[in-house]
């Protein structure tokens, strides 16, 4: 237990808010975003079940979005909050809040809109591609009228020979109302621009997805570059003898499968997956070693992660 000092608990897996491990879903998402960007589409709608990792995935990939030439494109992320009154000003206000810009909180809608336009134009000029990406999360909380804000932004930038690409993100179940509203003829322009292309975000839904993430644990190091890998950190001897966490992907997935059928869910929500895995490493793998690893341990971790009490079971 010599490692159980302060440095042991400094490991990133103990700080979930800062813990970032690339998933296969993120890779797929990035490919989808690039497909849209590179084919000149104005935007798309990404939806999926709650807690599946949409927001995390978008936040993780937002700085990796590239033009075809490999140049990184600036992306602005904003998340829409629920409000008593759904006003257009609120959308501008929220977008500006996420930009980090300083602005007068009592400014008019027009002033906020102009500030946002100026900011998007400025971002788009950062690269020679004159393109800026806007990621709008929790879109199910907006009305079609509020979504028109993004059409206006798109048009304004277009007037200046710049390109705005808007990716809407929302919960599948809660977006039904919005999507049905958008089916109306009066909302055709919004629908045609941003909702023609719809993608379901699947999260962790196969053994390959699990294996992809476990491989990251075998690769990622703490401290970065000089330290041991995550797996090595918690099972040094076995790791040096050839053990890799990815070898457990089958048993982990199979154990989850029993719960999946019981809970009637198609994918393992990322939050609960990482919660279970990050319990597994210090509480079981570290203590009992890889040789003594059993599916019961995984079951215990899954149950401790809170999956069984998740809101959508």
């Amino acid at each position, binding site marked *: 237990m010599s490692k159980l000092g302060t440095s042991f608990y400094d490991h990133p897996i103990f700080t979930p808010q800062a813990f970032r491990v690339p998933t296969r879903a993120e890779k797929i998402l990035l490919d989808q975003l690039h497909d849209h960007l590179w084919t000149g589409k104005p935007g798309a709608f990404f939806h999926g079940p709650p807690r599946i990792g949409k927001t995390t995935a978008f936040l993780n990939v937002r700085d990796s979005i590239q033009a075809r030439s490999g140049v990184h494109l600036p992306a602005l992320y904003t998340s829409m909050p629920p409000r008593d009154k759904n006003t257009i000003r609120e959308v501008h206000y929220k977008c500006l809040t996420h930009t980090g810009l300083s602005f007068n909180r009592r400014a008019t809608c027009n002033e906020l809109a102009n500030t946002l336009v*100026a900011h998007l134009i400025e971002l788009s000029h950062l690269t020679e591609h004159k393109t800026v990406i806007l990621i709008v999360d929790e879109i199910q909380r907006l009305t079609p009228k509020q979504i028109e804000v993004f059409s206006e932004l798109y048009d304004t930038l277009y007037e200046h020979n710049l390109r705005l690409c808007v990716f809407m993100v929302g919960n599948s179940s809660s977006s039904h109302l919005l999507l049905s509203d958008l089916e109306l003829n009066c909302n055709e322009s919004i629908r045609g621009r941003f909702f023609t292309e719809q993608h379901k975000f699947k999260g962790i839904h196969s053994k390959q997805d699990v294996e992809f993430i476990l491989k990251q644990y075998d690769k990622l190091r703490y401290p970065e570059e000089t330290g041991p890998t995550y797996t090595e950190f918690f099972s040094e001897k076995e790791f040096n003898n050839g053990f890799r966490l990815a070898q457990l992907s089958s048993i982990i997935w199979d154990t989850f499968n029993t719960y999946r059928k019981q809970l009637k869910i198609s994918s393992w929500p990322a939050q609960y997956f990482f919660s279970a895995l990050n319990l597994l490493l210090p509480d079981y793998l570290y203590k009992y070693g890889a040789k003594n690893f059993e599916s019961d341990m995984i079951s215990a971790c899954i149950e401790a992660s809170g999956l069984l009490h998740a809101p959508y079971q």
Partner: protein
Amino acid sequence: MRPISDTVINTGYWLSQPLESWYSVMIRLFHCNPSLTFYGWKMFLNDNKACSTEKMFDLLKDLYLKQAEILPEHKQELERHSHQIPNGKLKLCQECGNAGYHSYLFQFPWLHTCPLHSKPLESLCIECNRPWGNCEEFFKHHCQACGLKPLDEYLVLQYNLGRQDFTGLLTLSEQVDKLAKSSVLWFCWDQYEDLVFTRENKVNMRPSDEDFASVMLHLYPKATIALEPYLTYQATTHKQWLVKSTQWQPSDIYEDCTNRYTRTLSHNHLCPEIYGHIIQLPQQMVLARQKAIKRVHELLSEIHPKTHSLHRSDISSIMSIESDCPLCIAFSCWYSILLVDNHSWYIPPDDPEQNFLYFDGIKNYPKTPTPCKYLATEESYYETPIDFQAFMYEIDLLQCFLQVYEYIATSYVQVIKSYPRTVYIADLENYLTHVKPSQDGQAYFQLHNHCLDGYFPNSYLPESFTLKKFPEIIEMLKKNNPHFFYMNKELYRDGLTSVQYQMLDLLFVHNQFRNHYVAYSHFLESNFEKIRAFLSRKGKITNTC
């Protein structure tokens, strides 16, 4: 790429235009952040505390420079002109004012017309009659021209501005920058007169003949033949008119002490630091100097009585003198250059680092005229009578003054910019701030219809001399062509004797000076009788041997 998380304001850097000033940047910041009020800016910049407008500007500058790291060259340019934040004293043309563009070049006192729009640079907005640059008024939306505009309208104006041709402004800036490059001006004052110069503070103007009226003494073979009866053949062959060819041996001392040029070796007891040549001038040449100095001095005295104070002062006291003009400065420089001591002429060594006003663009310029004058042909050269030399020397000295003045007049603002090295001229800015437009002694430019008029004080130079077209000024600055001064004959005629007039007419008036290298032989042949008469009056030409 700049991290988005670092962004606190929209910089609008992508709308930046060449040579813009801080005023221009601030107007852009205000337009690109329309949700911030004037008060909001102050609070935001000063940690939610109210502050003065001046402090707000300073904080805004710092913030902008911090954020503008993505464009280092842009940042560099702004930092260079950071002292150019004018408040309430802006000069703008109405078009630039509407677009919110201002260049530091507009603030030059001699520039009266916008090089971009060819409209007058005014200190007041035509629409509201308020001074440009009043930020509080700017936020009140009172004036559609100089007030805060909607973003889309501002962007359209900026795009239109971006389509303007900035070439003229850029060229002017480029030339002005050349003049602004570091140069060390060292002057000799009366108190140093007897000590000549030390190596550290000597004046190094390179000697020249080609840049002065005496260049006319180059003759061509045909002319030589025509003038042969009046010239004494000199055995040594020279093809160039250079100082090198005129160095004396100790034995070259005339019996007549008034006609004596004596070379002093550089390592003499008076100035061991100097390793050039010091030549003791004949009395006539000293008198020629005094006449030239007196003439310029009298002209300046007519313009304003403070002329004297400057050149008689110590360097330290010059810094405190107020209300002096470029002509006085030029006079001081010129006077100091001449008076190594009253009776000698210093030839500096051929060392570029020590040349007076030596830097790119004005290499070896201004120059000092050689006192001894020879008639040079392609085959040989001849010494001329000493009184003729004195006359030519005086003319050359006057022209030398104009060269110095040209330098000062074109560079005074830039010299002020680098004032730690050239503090002596710092008071010029003060002078220009207080001087009234009609006051004599003010150098100015007037740019309209692509013509840049002015450049010399009205009172000193005839009107015809001051009319220069903008491209010509640029061309002149590029080439630093001193012969430009010859274009006006009146300059040289004023105050001369009738004999001098006659000679000047021969030299300048009836000749296309710019083509003198080509047209001389023809000129001399066609004016042979006049030249002969002139030379006859002065007596026979003596032999140098």
